[in-house]
């Protein structure tokens, strides 16, 4: 291929999104940590594991408290309510009796009730308006008695034994007062017992909560440890480690997987950057050197205007070639970075195939080659029209270049179930199995291709385009008829959706 005698500002060439030689910023160091909190307490508090665990413990305790509250209300509370109800009913009955028959009847009823109180728990008092005791087993109205207060809960001394009393004081219409009460010491004891039981179980629950929290935190940390360790290694500069996967199908596994995918992507992009710098070192140096030599030579021949002009023209052609390679490298980088996926649109491959066949068919014809084509009526895809044509163009260009004059080239496409398969076949020297593995590496050129001009970037770009469209690229034997020229078929498969 002779480079065209003028530069081609290539449309749709990659934008130097990242300066090709840009060294990626060091992954380690830098202001990664926010603030400076060296204390172990802070570390503990700022640990997500700890916070999760704490949340767990708090929830656990809240549940326990709710449970305790309900239990309490249902037992001790019920006891209290029962006692109060009994006292009130008793007092009302006595007041009724007083209305019917006056003080003596009430005194009699009180004595009767006391006489039957084998458990020795009831407290009664009928006090005259003066406060004098008329009947009952209480010495007098309680200390701190206030006429408007009906209910009293207070300490009691019964035959010298301390206890606790619940007392209801009912004023009677003539100014005397009726007090009915119960010694609730027994019930209090029961309540204390209940309380203690609950407290113990709360304590145990708290222990469980903390132990559970600690376990949870440990489990979280243990599951996160491989991720952290991998991240630390990566931050240290080694991009090869990956998060070991446990095989359990859970969230941590998903985290590990997506992190690995991300790392693969990063590694791939880094490789791309490295590829660009390699490319510059490898393939641009030569034409730049050639251009430089040519210009230097021209300087020496400055007194021969014809030679000078020729040298200058060749120098410009060399520089154009440098630009072309440069743009191809950048475009590959752009495609590999996936930046062009934004430009994807529904596209029918058939017009593209027709255009490519038309564009390169003429060239093939000029070389006495025949281009045979076959494809269905429509091959709908989602993709980048210019890139797909570029891929077809590169393959056809190669096929035309490597097929001897008078040979034939095949371009075919077929619709499979969920993909489009495209095949470009030639009668060239073909590729050995070892070379097939290496082709697509940037600048790789098979030994058999050394004599043919080319940058070695064509297939790299094809592969990048195919991968950008989620497809795969492979090689098959072409349709060459001689043993030395088995031919090569480059095939790729693009998924439909």
């Amino acid at each position, binding site marked *: 291929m002779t480079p065209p005698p003028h530069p081609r500002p290539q449309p749709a060439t990659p934008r130097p999104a990242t300066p090709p030689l840009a060294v990626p910023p060091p992954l380690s160091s830098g202001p990664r940590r926010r603030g400076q909190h060296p204390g172990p307490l802070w570390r503990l508090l700022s640990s997500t594991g700890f916070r999760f665990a704490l949340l767990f413990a708090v929830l656990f305790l809240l549940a326990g408290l709710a449970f305790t509250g309900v239990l309490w209300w249902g037992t001790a509370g019920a006891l209290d309510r029962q006692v109060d109800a009994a006292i009130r009913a008793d007092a009302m009955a006595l007041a009724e009796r007083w209305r019917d028959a006056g003080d003596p009847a009430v005194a009699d009823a009180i004595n009767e009730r006391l006489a039957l109180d084998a458990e020795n728990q009831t407290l009664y008092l009928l006090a005259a308006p003066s406060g004098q005791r008329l009947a009952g*087993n209480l010495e007098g109205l309680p200390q701190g008695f206030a006429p408007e207060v009906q209910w009293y809960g207070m300490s009691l001394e019964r035959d010298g034994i301390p206890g606790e009393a619940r007392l209801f004081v009912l004023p009677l219409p003539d100014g005397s007062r009726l007090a009915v009460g119960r010694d609730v010491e027994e019930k209090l004891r029961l309540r204390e017992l209940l309380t*203690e039981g609950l407290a113990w179980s709360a304590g145990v629950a708290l222990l469980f909560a903390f132990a559970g929290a600690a376990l949870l935190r440990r489990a979280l940390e243990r599951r996160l440890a491989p991720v952290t360790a991998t991240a630390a290694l990566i931050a240290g500069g080694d991009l090869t480690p990956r998060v070991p996967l446990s095989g359990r199908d859970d969230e941590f596994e998903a985290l590990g997987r997506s992190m690995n995918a991300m790392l693969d992507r990063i590694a791939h992009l880094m490789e791309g950057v490295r590829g660009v710098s390699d490319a510059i070192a490898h393939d641009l140096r030569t034409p730049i050197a050639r251009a430089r030599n040519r210009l230097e030579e021209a300087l020496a021949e400055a007194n021969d205007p014809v030679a000078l002009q020729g040298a200058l023209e060749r120098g410009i052609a060399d520089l154009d070639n440098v630009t072309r390679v440069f743009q191809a490298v950048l475009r590959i980088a752009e495609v590999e970075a996936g930046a062009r996926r934004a430009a994807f649109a529904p596209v029918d491959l058939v017009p593209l195939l027709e255009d490519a066949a038309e564009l390169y068919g003429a060239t093939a014809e000029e070389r006495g080659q025949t281009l045979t084509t076959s494809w269905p009526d429509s091959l709908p895809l989602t993709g980048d029209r210019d890139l797909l044509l570029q891929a077809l163009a590169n393959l056809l260009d190669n096929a035309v270049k490597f097929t001897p004059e008078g040979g034939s080239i095949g371009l075919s496409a077929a619709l499979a179930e969920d993909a489009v398969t495209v095949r470009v076949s030639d009668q060239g020297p073909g590729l050995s199995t070892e070379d097939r593995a290496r082709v697509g590496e940037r600048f790789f050129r098979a030994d058999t291709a050394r004599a043919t001009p080319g940058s070695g970037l064509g297939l790299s770009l094809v592969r990048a385009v195919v991968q950008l469209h989620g497809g795969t690229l492979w090689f098959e034997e072409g349709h060459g008829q001689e043993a030395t020229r088995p031919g090569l078929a480059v095939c790729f498969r693009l998924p439909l959706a």
Partner: protein
Amino acid sequence: MLPRFLLALSVLSFHPRLAFSAELRTVPQDLRYCQELAERLAAQPGGSKEPARSLGEEGLQLCNAGNVRTGVARLRRAMRVAQGR
């Protein structure tokens, strides 16, 4: 330790009693009350039947022996039995 702490925390209605000084006092039960109960028992229609009668006697004896509290309790139980409760 922890349970104790929680005991204080969770039992809001719990007041530990400190130095004992009662706000309410009962009339002391004495021998006279024992006799009153015994008379009341005797007045009951079932007071002379067993086992109320012997329970009452036992109670009065206990009262006389100085164990007023137990005696009163026994007499009251006798009353209950006598009333068929």
